[in-house]
């Protein structure tokens, strides 16, 4: 008799170990998580989840714990879900940030030499080396796929990151400062120029402040040979972040 009970318990345990159910996870996510994280994980009151690396959940066990316990004080824990349901939600959350594996033509080692010879390090930092005018690229391959990187290299203004803005400010004295907006509020703006210098302005002290929409200081690399471009894309895609 007790053996039967044990068998039933083992069976139940085995069910709890079943593979996560992505469809069930999606249903739970959309009804209970999406209120803050957005229906497709693009974020809302809570952060976006459609990215491969989640700061509070570096691995699957951490993600399980975040979903189960929540994050004080804003995110409630999902104490009403059972273990299989939580794993299903976790799997769905991971799927939101998954970048499908893609086959890249180029060679990363050759691509690194292209990166160095074409002056990319004059504006970008990779693994601690380079200049910081443009965004750091140490983990760019974890955030963007090859097609996206290729398009950015060919036509940089077409895929600007959300919130990125190139601006031109003209002071009362007539001086023009052009650069990347690093911060802005209703009354002030902070701009970083091409030399990496910060400029702080009260908006009321400026003659004009013009957003240069769809512009970026990054040049197009359309002049690269197709082999060089493949190699450079392959190198950038290999940059998965700090070890």
């Amino acid at each position, binding site marked *: 008799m007790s053996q039967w009970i044990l068998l039933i318990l083992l069976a139940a345990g085995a069910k709890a170990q079943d593979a996560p159910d992505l469809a069930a996870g999606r*249903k739970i996510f*959309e009804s209970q998580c999406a209120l803050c994280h957005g*229906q497709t994980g693009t*974020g*809302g009151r809570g952060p976006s989840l459609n990215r491969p690396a989640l700061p509070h959940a570096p691995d699957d066990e951490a993600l399980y714990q975040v979903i189960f316990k*929540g994050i004080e004080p804003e995110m409630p824990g999902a104490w*009403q879900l059972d273990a299989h349901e939580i794993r299903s939600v976790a799997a769905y959350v991971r799927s939101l940030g998954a970048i499908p594996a893609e086959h890249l033509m180029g060679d990363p080692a050759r691509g690194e030499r292209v990166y160095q010879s074409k002056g990319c390090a004059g504006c970008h930092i990779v693994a601690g080396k380079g200049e910081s005018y443009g965004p750091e690229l140490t983990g760019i391959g974890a955030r963007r796929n090859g097609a996206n990187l290729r398009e950015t290299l060919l036509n940089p203004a077409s895929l600007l990151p959300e919130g990125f803005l190139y601006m031109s400010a003209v002071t009362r004295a007539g001086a023009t400062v052009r650069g990347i907006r690093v911060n802005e509020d*209703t009354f002030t703006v902070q701009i970083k120029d091409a030399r990496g210098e910060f400029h702080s302005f009260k908006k009321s002290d400026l003659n004009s402040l013009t957003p240069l929409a769809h512009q970026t200081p990054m040049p197009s690399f359309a002049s690269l040979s197709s082999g060089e471009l493949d190699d450079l894309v392959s190198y950038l895609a290999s940059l998965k972040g700090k070890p």
Partner: protein
Amino acid sequence: MRHHALWLLAIGLCGIACAQVSYDRIVKAQQEPGNWLTYSGNYAGHRYSPLAGITRENVAGLRVAWAHQFGTGRTETSPIVVNGVMYVTAPNMAAALDARTGRELWKWSRPIPKDYRPIGFGQVNRGPAILDDRLFVATLDCFLVALDLKSGAERWTAKVGDYKLGYSMTLAPLAIKGKVIVGVSGGEAGIRGFIDAYDAATGARAWRFWTIPAPGEPGHETWPQDAPSRDSWKTGGGSAWVTGSYDPESNLVYWGIGNAGPDWNGDSRTGDNLYTCSLVALDGDTGALKWHFQFTPHDTHDWDSAHVPVLFEAEVRGVKRKLVAVANRNAFFYVLDRSSGEFVAGRAYAKQTWAKGLDDSGRPVVLPHTDPSEEGTTLWPNLNGATVWFSPSYSPQTGLFYVMVRELGSIYYKREADYKPGTFFAGGGEGHIPNGERKGAVRALDVATGNLRWEFSLHSPSWSGVLSTAGGLVFAGAEEGNFFALDAASGKPLWEFQTGGAISANPISFSVDEKQYVAIPADRVLYVFGLNP
């Protein structure tokens, strides 16, 4: 040192002479402008200070007088100030501060149960209420607590709702004659909402108004009558989570009612779903419904009518009338007769794409294809609305209604909703419009018509309420931390301070030793500003 001792002595003496904050004193709050005696400064919901020490001419000299750091997260408290003592709250916490220095005089707290979960809102508290010798605080685990004004000791504790079913409270109570009124949060948890009044002396419940009428009660006909949805009213939502207003003359309490549940999927709750997304006028003695006005019938966008109603008088077509104004989450501004609920005027005050306009009775003429959908429906305003819980302000000096406006749309999704007690019962939600425009503004509207007089644009949508003063100023805050003063007549910016934290609270004004101060929380710090402090 001697000065400090004198101050404490003064507080002590005043504690004996002035601690009794009678109902009569709150009714006549404008006669003691140095104190801030109720959530909105007066019962009429004006959030207007009759103090005129800080003016258009001298506001540029405003400096930090003191700051008080809370141990908890983002602070949304709207303090009460009486005779040199400021009363503040945080989730399940209250404190009395020396209003000259910010130093703590006493502190009270109640543990938040380990299994408490906020369902659909942040863990915040928006302020206390005061009456006679007591301070009243509503807690996250849904208790109303009466504290001794001089020590913070508990006088009584009343259970208002069951937090395990999603009932909670974040609002400042409203204390009227002998009673303390509260409403519940929980509109995303499938609650059946209510507004309660408690005897201020004993904590006994005096009345309850259910915001979702039961079978046999008027209004129930606006819910499904037949299977399989005949029980949808039991999980129909109708929270009441923002402090109302009160007219002592008619003894009517005005209170906004929240969204219907489930929020974004209305299939199981066909009909108008009274009294969700409505303003109700209740008898202060009995809680009996005098009238209602529904802003958003059968809402499917989470547009709670969670606002402080503003009571005022104005001439309408040559006749002086007692009116109530509401800038609604649904992006329309309304003026109603406050004796009858009759619609007097209304118009959109922010970008909206869901209605053609309002008909002669004030009912929205809803455009087709505006409901949430499986693939997503793009619509303005977003689910937080064109404005929400943070307070508007009405200045009798300018006759203008000042409102913080959020200008952004969203993509509304509809999903299935299964009711499971104590969990989300939402039926969908929203998603950001990629690279969508997000703006904010303080707008000044003619109070009787809603016509725009001026606007001051903000870099992004804000969660700050608005204060107007007899000094001809309007104070408000920004998401980026700026706290600022505008000319109440023109909207011109006159002063600004970077607090370093997002502002998600309502400003107040008070005076100590006849010197005017303005207070605003930013993130977890309460700032108090004065001239030449």
